[in-house]
């Protein structure tokens, strides 16, 4: 009985400690992470391929539709590409005219690292997953993780050859890591809000602190705004489903349906934002 009491106190201490904001993992954690991840990666990938094969057979019927859809997308892409080239040239010209510094020019030059998912946590309250890139590949805490559909999550812990990703569905104002705030805007509109929590009952993200006269509407595509320069800009988060008056009646809250698929991921991209200070030192 006495021993159990001591055990209980010990566990509360450990949990409280792990809940606080930690900068780095200790070496036993790193070691366990990396060695277990090595074994997990041997299992996850083949299983994914097998499952993908069955999925492919099932979706064979939709191939025609998908092909049609892709063709229109490619046409649109070709059109957008030409406008993009033109705009980019223009933009570069204006930047040189306005005498931007190197650091300013490189601000939006993001580097994308491809990472394979090696395991997913079987837990309803903590849906982290692991990727096979770590600090040796230049991954740091809080980097954005995306797929082609949109924002997936943030790097929460880094070991030498693997790291743990916390999906955006774990955003939570209470927990030390989950209390990350993503500043967001609407593509094509001058709007501002902060995505900071997720409701697992409705499956929607909550974007708060939207001003009263904000042009945000239902059906708008919410993207990251890149303000604060920790987070890259222009990454899709999701579509606005509804908009309501917020807690104190001064601001609005929008409910967003995430656009990225968050389960059964195979490959993700980690976005490296160029460090403004490091760029400044180079000059």
């Amino acid at each position, binding site marked *: 009985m006495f021993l159990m009491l001591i055990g209980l106190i010990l566990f509360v201490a450990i*949990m409280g400690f792990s809940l606080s904001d930690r900068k780095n993992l200790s070496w036993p*954690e790193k070691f366990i992470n990396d060695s277990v991840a090595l074994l997990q990666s041997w299992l996850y990938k083949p299983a994914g391929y097998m499952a993908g094969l069955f999925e492919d057979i099932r979706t064979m019927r939709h191939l025609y539709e998908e092909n049609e859809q892709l063709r229109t997308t490619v046409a649109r892409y070709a059109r957008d590409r030409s406008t993009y080239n033109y705009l980019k040239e223009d933009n570069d010209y204006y930047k040189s005219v306005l005498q931007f510094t190197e650091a300013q020019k490189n601000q939006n030059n993001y580097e994308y690292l491809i990472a394979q998912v090696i395991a997913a946590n079987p837990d309803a309250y903590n849906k*982290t997953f692991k990727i096979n890139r770590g600090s040796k590949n230049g991954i740091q805490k809080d980097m954005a993780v995306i797929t082609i559909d949109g924002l997936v999550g943030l790097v929460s812990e880094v070991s030498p050859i693997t790291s743990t990703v916390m999906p955006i569905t774990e955003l939570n104002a209470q927990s030390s890591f989950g209390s990350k705030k993503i500043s967001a805007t609407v593509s094509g509109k001058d709007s501002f809000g902060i995505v900071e929590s997720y409701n697992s009952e409705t499956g929607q993200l909550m974007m708060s602190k939207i001003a009263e006269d904000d042009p945000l509407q239902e059906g708008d595509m919410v993207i990251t705004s890149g303000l604060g320069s920790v987070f890259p800009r222009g990454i899709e988060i999701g579509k606005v489903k509804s908009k309501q008056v917020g807690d104190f009646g001064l601001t609005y809250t929008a409910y967003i349906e995430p656009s990225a698929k968050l389960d059964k991921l195979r490959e993700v991209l980690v976005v490296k934002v160029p460090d403004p200070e490091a760029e400044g030192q180079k000059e």
Partner: protein
Amino acid sequence: MKLHWIILIMFFLFLLEGTIVTWLIPTGWTHRLIPHFVFVFVLFAAMYAGRHVALFLGLAFGMLQDIVFYGHIIGIHSFSMGLCGYLAGLLLEYRRPPMLTAISVIGMGCLLLDTVVFMVYTVFQINKQPYVWALTHHILPSLFLQLIFALILYIPARRWFEGAFRKNSKEENEQAQL
């Protein structure tokens, strides 16, 4: 079967939980059917190898899961798996329950585990949903997954544990007869 082989099997199950099982579960049910295969083995250990072995296995494998998938908090699975394994051991140690009793004990153990996990997450304000939601959302669906797994592995797991702890259980039986 020696104990270290059982630990190896449990480690393999732990690897399966995070990798292959994720792919076997149909889309849309991913975080509703949660495998607790390692914990089922902890309960087997509680019944056939004693509460201390169950406590040790629960603590160790819970801690492994906590460290590998460190998200919000460390120690939650370790605490709940150790506690539930120990309690199950207190109830049924060396009693050799018949199969139906054993399976229902495993079911109740899994319910208890999910409840303890839910409660710890609620205490630390990471979870904000009510218990009724958690019950229908993932606790009950995953209970069936655990029961099916326990049914499939009931006979081999029992043999493995009895093989590893034959000496102890014989002594216990003799003591009981005396």
